[in-house]
């Protein structure tokens, strides 16, 4: 066991932090308020290589690993959870399945622009009636004239949708087969019959452009089927296993960011003639939060390292996400309590962090789904 971060990872953490503090933090409140997608920072991250951290250099990536990627999401999410999820959804949910399941031609055509950040990615699984029960896909794909696929249906709650160029989409190719009738496709923005629907007005992560995707006789080239027909659901589940580490890192970052802000605040704010940091309640609250956040961090890093070592990590990712997400909601709520009335105003970032934290308990598998995964792995049936 070695819990130290090596020099290479630490130097990149410093790079992510410098960028997050200088470029992301100053606009976090504004983009939350206006729901403006931070395209200028996405471009800067693309230039720096932050949109392809875990992919090999030959595919336009930075040639680093999952651990460094989640540390990037963590640093970004400390100051802006929206920016954290933009990177996470792009990397884990769009570029990764193309890297894992795509053909060499698909990697050349789609992974390279995604990993180099020239194009932004999104992932479409969820539908109005297929949330946690994602096997209930209503979107259909039919092969016409052995030449192209025709997609019909809609997806909802799709992160990055309004800004993305490349979409990894799940659709039913054979309803009679249930799960095994779902296939995966790469759909490009601008393909005939594909449009972006309404943008959700969300409680948190308000600038991440969460929209509906609409397919009306959408024509997708035959060669844009990913992997084997009928394997889409399996690919989606494997993709979400990895995605969960990214979201766990986002949750971890939110908690760390909230604690950082609160530690500063409690040393400035005085009540009853003392800094509120001098009250034992404040000290114990923050100590407890810090300890739990450190525990979450170890779980997140453990899951990332297991993935990098090609070990089984499904249960580890689920544990990391369950613990980190629950902790993020808990920590931000407690931090806001330490701020008191000021924390409830938009003059301080803590209310935004509390709103942002909640989603980590819901998307890419609710906390309840994580518990199903973990208990299943334990053999408790």
């Amino acid at each position: 066991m070695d819990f130290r971060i090596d020099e290479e990872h630490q130097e990149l953490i410093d790079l992510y932090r410098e960028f997050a503090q200088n470029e992301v933090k100053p606009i976090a409140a504004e983009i939350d308020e206006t729901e403006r997608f931070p395209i200028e920072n996405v471009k800067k991250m693309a230039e720096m290589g932050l949109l392809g951290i875990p992919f090999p250099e030959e595919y336009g990536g930075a040639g680093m690993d999952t651990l460094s990627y989640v540390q990037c999401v963590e640093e970004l999410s400390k100051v802006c959870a929206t920016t954290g999820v933009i990177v996470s959804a792009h990397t884990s949910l769009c570029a990764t399945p193309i890297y894992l399941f795509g053909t060499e031609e698909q990697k050349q055509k789609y992974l390279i622009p995604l990993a180099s950040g020239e194009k932004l990615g999104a992932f479409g699984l969820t539908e109005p009636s297929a949330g946690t029960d994602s096997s209930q896909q209503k979107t259909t794909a039919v092969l016409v004239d052995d030449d192209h696929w025709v997609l019909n249906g809609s997806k909802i709650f799709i992160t990055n949708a309004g800004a993305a160029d490349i979409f990894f989409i799940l659709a039913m190719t054979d309803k009679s087969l249930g799960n095994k009738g779902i296939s995966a496709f790469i759909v490009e923005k601008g393909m005939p019959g594909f449009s972006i629907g309404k943008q959700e007005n969300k409680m948190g992560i308000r600038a991440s452009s969460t929209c509906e995707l609409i397919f009306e006789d959408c024509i997708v080239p035959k060669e844009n089927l990913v992997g084997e027909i009928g394997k889409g659901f399996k690919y989606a589940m494997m993709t979400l296993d990895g995605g969960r580490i990214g979201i766990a890192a986002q949750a971890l970052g939110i908690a760390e960011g909230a604690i950082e802000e609160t530690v500063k605040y409690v040393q400035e704010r005085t009540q009853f003639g003392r800094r509120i940091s001098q009250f034992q309640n404040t000290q114990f609250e923050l100590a407890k939060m810090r300890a739990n956040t450190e525990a979450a961090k170890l779980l997140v890093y453990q899951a990332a390292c297991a993935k990098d070592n090609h070990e089984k990590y499904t249960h580890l990712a689920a544990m990391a996400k369950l613990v980190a997400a629950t902790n993020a909601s808990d920590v931000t709520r407690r931090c806001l309590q330490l701020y008191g009335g000021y924390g409830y105003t938009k003059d301080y970032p803590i209310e935004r962090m509390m709103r942002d934290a909640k989603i980590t308990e819901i998307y890419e598998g609710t906390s309840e789904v994580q518990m199903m995964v973990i208990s299943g792995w334990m053999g408790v049936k």
Partner: protein
Amino acid sequence: MNILVCVKQVPDTNEIKIDPETHTLVRAGVPSIVNPFDTYALEAGVQIKEAIGGKVVVVSMGPEQAADALKTCLSVGADAAYLVSGREFGGSDTLATSFILSNAVKTIEEKEGAPFDLILCGKQAVDGDTAQVGPELAEHLGLPQLTYAMDLTVEDGVVKIKRECDDGYDLMTTNLPAVITVVKLPTEPRYPTIRSKMAAKKKPIPVLTAEDLAIDVSRCGLKGSPTKVKSTYTPSREKSGVKIAGLPADEAAAQLATLLTDAKIL
């Protein structure tokens, strides 16, 4: 186009502590960065290289740790880096520093196999704030110098700069080779990329010693430094600003307008 950028590693703090005995900077426990004006000089050099081709070399004089500053430079566009280091150089004032650097320039030119067309420095280091090393370096090398460049372009062996001044800028040109000192640019220096950062880590940084420079050591370090620091202190703020308080907004605005008119600002 061969470009040399001189950089200094400085403490990253606005509250610099001074040793009351020696009147020198207390460096212990303070993280170090590349002097901000030098990062603009480097960015300017890299932009020129990108526009017309060439090579950017960085040099720093300092202790071993100054190699970290050079690594940072290598990650944001510098192609090669040299560290000038040795006990003989410790305690150098600006005269000795610029003398050592001028010798280093010649040594690096030999190693690189070509003379430098353009030498860039930040206008001053944020720790010492003298703004003397750049101009003195030009004098030691017998090169023309332009200072306080906020923008620079190179064309047909001529460098054109916008020299920052209080009420705008002056347009100036000189023939290359030349030494230019650089102020804050309109654009911020670039961030490293993950790849450039990893590549910079692997690049060797040759150390140039007094022996390598074949330098007259009596003109280096404390021996070669006529400057004697008598005392260093933070200047006291003599005038505090005017505060308009306790008035309704419209009356406060009217009073502010009067004050500004009286001061001939409006």
